[in-house]
């Protein structure tokens, strides 16, 4: 079980879903906060859902206020760096590039992609944490090889 958990985590890193920040979070986890990483992750997904909603609404308005969109995305990107959401972060950067270029089409496309990555990551992490809990607390604190 524990090995399974370790493998899942490893694959998340290998596939670029997560970066070193996630490892850094794990290192912060200790007896005082045994579920720190999971808590942070939950917090991220809750907050980022709100941000995604804001951006969705802004895009739906169709007015394409690029400054505002860029600002939203800046927020979102900052948030995504907190747990090491690598692929999500990449989409954020692309979105901002399109904003600066004034490319509405590019923004829309990238945003769809971003939402997809975001959703994928959430599912993967939920699965990972679930297994980790079952496997036992020790495992989550260990760094992937």
């Amino acid at each position, binding site marked *: 079980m524990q090995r399974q958990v370790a493998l899942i985590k490893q694959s998340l890193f290998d596939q670029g879903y997560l970066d070193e*920040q996630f490892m850094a979070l794990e290192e*912060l986890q200790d007896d005082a906060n045994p579920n720190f990483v999971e808590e942070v992750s939950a*917090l991220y997904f809750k907050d980022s859902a709100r941000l995604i909603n804001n951006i969705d609404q802004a895009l739906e308005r169709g007015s394409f206020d690029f400054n505002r969109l860029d600002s939203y995305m800046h927020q979102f990107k900052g948030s995504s760096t907190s747990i090491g959401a690598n692929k999500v972060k990449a989409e954020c950067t692309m979105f901002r590039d399109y904003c600066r270029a004034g490319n509405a089409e590019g923004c829309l496309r990238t945003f769809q992609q971003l939402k997809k990555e975001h959703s994928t990551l959430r599912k993967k992490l939920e699965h990972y944490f679930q297994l980790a809990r079952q496997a036992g607390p020790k495992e989550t604190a260990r760094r992937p090889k």
Partner: protein
Amino acid sequence: MEKGFSPVGLRVLVVDDDPTWLKILEKMLKKCSYEVTTCGLAREALKLLRERKDGYDIVISDVNMPDMDGFKLLEHVGLELDLPVIMMSVDGETSRVMKGVQHGACDYLLKPIRMKELKIIWQHVLRKKLQEVRDIEGCGYEGGSDWITRYDESHFLGSGEDVSFGKKRKDFDFEKKLLQDESDPSSSSSKKARVVWSFELHQKFVNAVNQIGCDHKAGPKKILDLMNVPWLTRENVASHLQKYRLYLSRLEKGKELKCYSGGGKSMDSPLKDTEFSSGHQSPGKSSYVFSGGNNALLQKATDINPEPLASAPVSDPNCDAIMPPKTKKTRIGFDPPISSTAFDSLLPWSDVPEPPESKPVLYENSFLHQQPLSSQSSYVANTAPCLMEEEMKPPYETPAIGTCVNPDEFIMPQDKGPTVTLQDLDPSISNMKLQEFSSNVTNNTESILRSLNWELPESHHSASLDTDLDFSWLQGERFLANTGLQFQDYSSSPSLLSELPPHLWFGNERLPDPDEYSFMVDHGLFIS
């Protein structure tokens, strides 16, 4: 030096609108053994900082926040509190980083932030303290290292109330030393390569600030431009400004401790003697005017601190001779709240950043300049309010003023509106012992008052104060003069006061008790 310094227990305030980062940073900082306070809004952060002016050692803030721009917060913190601020952002663009530096950030971190970066943020706190000490040394202070060692020790080892008390006491001692050393400005130039704020330079600084006026923020850039000193940089000015303010606020705190209680007659501080002496050179017209203002302020001050008086005057040996015998008597008049206020301004400026209040101005004057100031008080008055008004928008806490005399009281942006004139002085305030005072003052004083159109209220001061008042008034005048009310082109005239925002003059919140009041008024130290 900093042998007593320890990063453990460093009090960090983290400001970030991102809840995820806030949680992560809190955990990271706690792992560094720091004492962490988190805050999701810039305004909330400012509120926390202002409530506990000495409650934090360093601020870490994100650049992008919904309610306030991070750079703005940075400016506020730097101006009002002179705390080191570290900016954070996911954006590492050169222009943004540059903006951070320009606004005074001591560091700029990119997200994601690593533990190793947070582990060493204490260096910024230490560096700032050392800089202050060095600047002070640059002005003649000898005991910088000791001071900072003691300061840091007490501060960081976290002894709570004791610590703060100790700190204040140490600060006070430090200030005293500054005053003593102050009279030898030449020593500073040989000491360090860093910018030495000579009296002339400081004077230019103060002039520039005053020139900027009350409508605009006396920002370092503007001050620098007005000063027209080619080799001086904006950073020099900014740091000088901050230090001055901090110094003034520290003095206040020190004064609080020493403040006399219960009626201000018990000022015994030996320092007073010295202090008084320095202040007697100028006609003190302006001081008189100020004193009126001080009264009002003093009213607000709960504590009157004679200390400031003592510390401020540094320069006049003659006064000393005269002073001592009278000091005790006059002490009442002198020391009280007014004097503290006056003194604050008089106290040697030691690069302590002070909340934008006028304090810095007053302070600088007194600190650098021991000459008689005929019109100086007006100058001070002018600058003070300007600074205050400009930079300190949020109400300044009365307690911060330190209870005693501090220019803060003088400049506290209390509730009053912007114009302060002697004539406009709130009768309840200006009526304070002014009347009594005037009856006891010399012709000089009276004429000054009259020229200012000041209504002297009925004095209800005890008879015993009369003599004191006379003397103290004289002394106060001189004191004020010495204390560096370096007014340059001002003559004590009512108009000066009119330029001052009333709130600056009067510490609206506090009303000193009658005894204190009379002191303040009498000595004209109120000027601050």
